[in-house]
C-alpha cells in the first residue's frame, strides 16, 4: 500500500495517454536502432541507457512546479546568452564551426540549452506582460529571440538557429502575434531571400540547397546522402523489406543511418505501411500534447507547452522531409527514434515540462 502510494506520488504529474504514446515511439525507435546498428548490442544498450536517463529526467522535471520554472526563465536565458558570447569569443572550432565551449572537465554546446531557454524566456516575458500586452512587447520579445539566434547563426549553425527561431515564433504566434506582422515578416523574409542567399549563407549551406534540387550533380559528394536515402525509402515499397533486412542499411550504403538518417532505415524495412503508422504516431503525440497545452492554467504554461509540442512536430517534419528528399540536409535527428542522448534528453525534458505545466494547475494561483 505504501509502495502504491509512493508510485502514485511519483507519477502524479504524468499524463497517461501521452506517456503511453511516447513509450510506443521509443520502443519502435529502439528496434530501428537495433537494425541500423547492425545488431550491435553495445549500441542498443547505450541507447537504452540514454532512454532511461531521459525518462528519469522527464519524470524529475514533471515534478517541478511552473512557478519555479518561471523563476528560472530569465536566469537560464541570461546564462545562455553569456555562454553563447563565450562561444563566440573563446569557443572551439569543430568541423569548421565554432559551437563548443571548453569548460575544463567537459565541453558544452550552449545552443542546445537555448532550445528550451528561448521559448521559456519568451513565454515568461509574454506572461509577465500579459495584462498590458502591446505591439511593443512583441517587438521586445522579437529582439529577445533574435539575440541568441544571431549568435548561433554566426557559429555557423543554421539548422539550430532556424529551429530556435521557429520555437520562439511559436510562442509569439500562440501569444497572439498580429497577422499583419506575421504576413509582413513573411513578405520581408521572401524579399530578403536573395540577399541571404548571396551574402549570409556559407558555401556549404548553398551547396546543400542546390544538392537538394539536383542530387545527381554531386553523386559522390554532398548528393550521396540524399541519393542513397531516397533509394532506401523508395525501395522499401508498400510493405518494406522486413526488419533487419534493408539492403541499403545493412550493406553500408546509408550514411549516418542510426542518427540523422534513421528514417531511411525505418522506411526501407517497414515500407509505406510503416511510414503511415509512424506519421500517425507522431500526429497522436502532437495532438495529445496540444490538447494538454490548451489545458494549462497559466498563459506561461500554455505558451511554453504549446511551443514545445510544435517544436517537436517541426523536428519530426524537418527530419523526415530531409531524408525523403524534400528539404535540404540539416543536422536534425528524428525525435525519440534517432540514436543519441542529447536530443532524447532535450525532447523528453520538454515533454516533462509540458506535463508539469498542465498537471500543477491546482497549485498555481493566477
Amino acid at each position, binding site marked *: 500500500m505504501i509502495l502504491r502510494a509512493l508510485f502514485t506520488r511519483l507519477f502524479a504529474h504524468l499524463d497517461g495517454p501521452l506517456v503511453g504514446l511516447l513509450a510506443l515511439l521509443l520502443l519502435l525507435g529502439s528496434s530501428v536502432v537495433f537494425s541500423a546498428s547492425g545488431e550491435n548490442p553495445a549500441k542498443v544498450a547505450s541507447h537504452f541507457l540514454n532512454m532511461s536517463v531521459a525518462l528519469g529526467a522527464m519524470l524529475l522535471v514533471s515534478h517541478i512546479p511552473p512557478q519555479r520554472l518561471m523563476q528560472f526563465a530569465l536566469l537560464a536565458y541570461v546564462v545562455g546568452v553569456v555562454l553563447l558570447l563565450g562561444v563566440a569569443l573563446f569557443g572551439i572550432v569543430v568541423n569548421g564551426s565554432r559551437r563548443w565551449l571548453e569548460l575544463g572537465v567537459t565541453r558544452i554546446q550552449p545552443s542546445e540549452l537555448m532550445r528550451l531557454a528561448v521559448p521559456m524566456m519568451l513565454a515568461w516575458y509574454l506572461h509577465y506582460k500579459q495584462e498590458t500586452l502591446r505591439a511593443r512587447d512583441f517587438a521586445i520579445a522579437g529582439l529577445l529571440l533574435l539575440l541568441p539566434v544571431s549568435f548561433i547563426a554566426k557559429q555557423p549553425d543554421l539548422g539550430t538557429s532556424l529551429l530556435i527561431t521557429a520555437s520562439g515564433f511559436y510562442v509569439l504566434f500562440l501569444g497572439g502575434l498580429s497577422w499583419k506582422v506575421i504576413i509582413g515578416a513573411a513578405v520581408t523574409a521572401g524579399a530578403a531571400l536573395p540577399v541571404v542567399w548571396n551574402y549570409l549563407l556559407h558555401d556549404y549551406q548553398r551547396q546543400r540547397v542546390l544538392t537538394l534540387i539536383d542530387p545527381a550533380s554531386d553523386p559522390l559528394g554532398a548528393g550521396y546522402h540524399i541519393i542513397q536515402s531516397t*533509394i532506401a525509402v523508395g525501395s522499401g515499397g508498400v510493405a518494406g523489406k522486413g526488419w533487419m533486412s534493408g539492403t541499403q542499411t545493412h550493406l*553500408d550504403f546509408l550514411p549516418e543511418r542510426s542518427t540523422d538518417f534513421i528514417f531511411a532505415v525505418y522506411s526501407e524495412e517497414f515500407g509505406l505501411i510503416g511510414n503511415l503508422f509512424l506519421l500517425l504516431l507522431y500526429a497522436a503525440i502532437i495532438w495529445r500534447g496540444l490538447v494538454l497545452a490548451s489545458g494549462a492554467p497559466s498563459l506561461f504554461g500554455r505558451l511554453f507547452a504549446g511551443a514545445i509540442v510544435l517544436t517537436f*512536430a517541426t523536428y519530426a517534419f524537418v527530419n523526415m522531409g530531409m531524408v525523403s528528399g524534400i528539404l535540404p540536409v540539416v543536422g536534425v535527428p528524428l525525435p525519440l527514434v534517432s540514436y543519441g542522448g542529447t536530443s532524447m534528453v532535450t525532447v523528453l525534458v520538454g515533454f516533462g515540462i509540458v506535463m508539469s505545466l498542465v498537471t500543477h494547475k491546482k497549485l498555481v494561483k493566477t
Partner: protein
Amino acid sequence: MSGLRLINPEVEFLRYRRRVEIAGGVAALLFLVLLFRSVWLQVIQYDHYHALAENNRISLVPAPPSRGVIYDRQGEVLAQNFSAYTLEITPSKAGRLEETLNQLSQVVSIDTGDRKRFKRLLAESKNFESIPIRNKLTEEEVARFTVNRYRFPGVEVKARLFRQYPFGDIFSHVVGYIGRIGQNDLDRLEASERLANYRGTDHIGKLGIEASYEAWLHGRTGIEKIETDSSGRAVRLLSRSAPVSGHNLYLHIDAKLQQVAEKVFGDYRGALVALDPRNGGVLALVSKPGFDPNLFVDGIDSATWRELNDADERPLINRALRGVYPPGSTIKPFMGLAGLELGLRKPDDSISDPGYFTLSGSSHRYRDWKKDGHGMVDLKKSIVISCDTYYYGLAHQMGIERMSGFLAQFGFGQKSGVDLDGELSGLLPTPEWKRRRFKQPWWPGETVIAGIGQGYVLSTPMQLAVATMAIANNGVVYKPQLIRAWRDPSSGLLSHAAPQILRRIPLKPEFLRLVKEAMVDVTLPGGTASAAGANTPYQFAGKTGTAQVVGIRQGEKYDERRVAARHRDHALFIAFAPADNPKIVVAVMVENGGHGGSTAAPVARKVIDYWLLGKLPAVYAPVEPGAAVQEEELEDAGPAEEPVPPVVQGAAQ
C-alpha cells in the same frame, strides 16, 4: 492595441485555442505532404528505386571458363593452359599512373617492354578495366607486392590462366595462337551475339585451330551473383552458374611426324601436307618458316610484330593453304588420266619426242626439259620420265576448257574445305576468266604450257595433297580435316569427327592402275625420283615437279648456279604409299628448292619412312617442348600470294 486592456480570460483562451488549431492544421498538412512523398517514392516510383537498390547491392562477376586443350593423335599436348600471377592496374582507381608505375617498379621488376605494352593496352582499353602490367610474377615478387599492397590502390595481383604452346614454332600454322580481344573481334562477337559469353575473357583465337574452333574451345562463361557492400567488398554469394570449360580437341596431326617433316625440310622455305587417304585426316601440315605463337599470347610488342610481318621469308603466311604455286609436272598424272578418260589418248599411243613442241604456223619451240628429247614416249613413260612434249601436245588437243573442267574434279582451283581459316583457292584458268581478269583473248600457247602445270595454273600444297589422295583412293576424295575427335567437358563424352566424302570421281580402273604403276615407276630406277625411292620396302608412288619462277628467254639455258637464290625453281613432289594400300599421301613444295626429284622427293620419302616404318631420319632430334626457338636466316623471297601468272615459256621437269 493601444492603452490598457482588460484581461478577459475567456477571449484570451478562445484566441489561444484558435491559434493552436491553426498550428495543428498546418502540422497535419505538412505530415500529409510527407505521406504523399512517401507514396510517390514507395509506390509510384517503386520500380525505379528498387532497381537502384538492387544495382547497389548486386554485382555480376563473370567466371571465365578454362579453354579447351588441344592434343595430337597420340595425346601429345599442342596447346595448354597454365595458371600464373599477373600484376594488374585499374587506371580509374590508381590515381596518377606514371607515379604508380615508378613506385611499383621498385617493388617488382618492370622493364620498358612491360611499360610499352601497358601503354598500348591502356590506349585500347575500356574504362574500369584492369590492365596487366606484369605477367608471370615469381612467388617472391607476389610476396613482395603483397607486403606493399597498401601503397598501391587500384593495383592487384590476379591469378590468371595463360595459354602455352609447348612446341613453339612447329605448330604455329596448325594450332595458331590466341591474342587479346581487339576491336574487330568485339564487333564480330557482338554481331553474332556471343559477346556476353566473353565477359571476363581477354583472349580469343586468332589463327589456326585456335581461331577455327574458337566456339568449341572457349567454353561457357559462368556468372557469380554477388552481394556487395558500399565499398565493393563481397558479402555473400547469391547464386552462381559455374563456367563450363571448352571442348578438348584431338587432332589427326601426329606431333612426331610433324617434327620429322620440319626437320627434314632443313633450312628451306616451303610447305608439306600429309593426309590419311582413308579418311582425309591431316597427319602433318608444315609451313616453313614458322614463328613462336607464344609471342602473341601476352600481346606481341610492335617491333617483333613488324619484324615477323615484314620479313622477306614471310613466316606469318601459312604456305600450305595460302601459298599458291604453279604445280609444274606434278600435274602430269592428272593430265594423263584426263587424256585417257576423255578418249584423247590410249595407253599404248606413243609420240616421238624431238625435244620440243611447236604449234602449227608458229616457229616458237616449247622445249622439253631434256634438250634432245626422250625418243618414243607412251603414257606410262611420259609420267615416269616426266616428258613435257607429250603433255604439250595433249593439252593443245584437249583445249583449256576441257582440261580445267577435268582437273576441277580433283579439287584444283577450289578450296579444299580444310578446317582452318584463310585457305586460298588457286586457279584453273579458262578463256572466260582471262577476258574478265586481263581483258585479253586466250592464246593457244597458254594451253600448251598449262599442260605441264605452268602458266596460269596455280595450286596450293593442300590442293596437291587432296588431288593425290583422289588417285590413291581410286577417285574417292575426302575433305581434309584436322579435327579427329573432341571431348565434351560436362559429359566427358568423346565424339569422333566423321570422314566426309567430297566427291567420287568416276575413273576407269584400268586407267587408274596404269597411272599408279607409272607413279610407282617414278621412284624406281629410271624414274625421276629414283634416288629418293631407292630401297623402299613398300611400294612408293610419286611424281616430281619443278616449277619455274622466272621465265627463260628463247635459246637460253637455265643455269642453276647463276640464278639468284630467290629466282631458283620451286621443287615439288606428290606421293602416296604403300601404292597397293595407301596409308599416307604427301605433297611437298620446297620454295626455290631446284629439282623436285632431288630436293622435294627426299623430304616425302623420310616422312613416309617414319610413318610406315617408324624410321627416324638422321637429322631428327626431338624438340624439347617449350624450348627456345631458333631463328632461321633465309635470304630468299616469299611465295607468290595472289594468283598472278608468272611469265613462263618452256621447260618443266
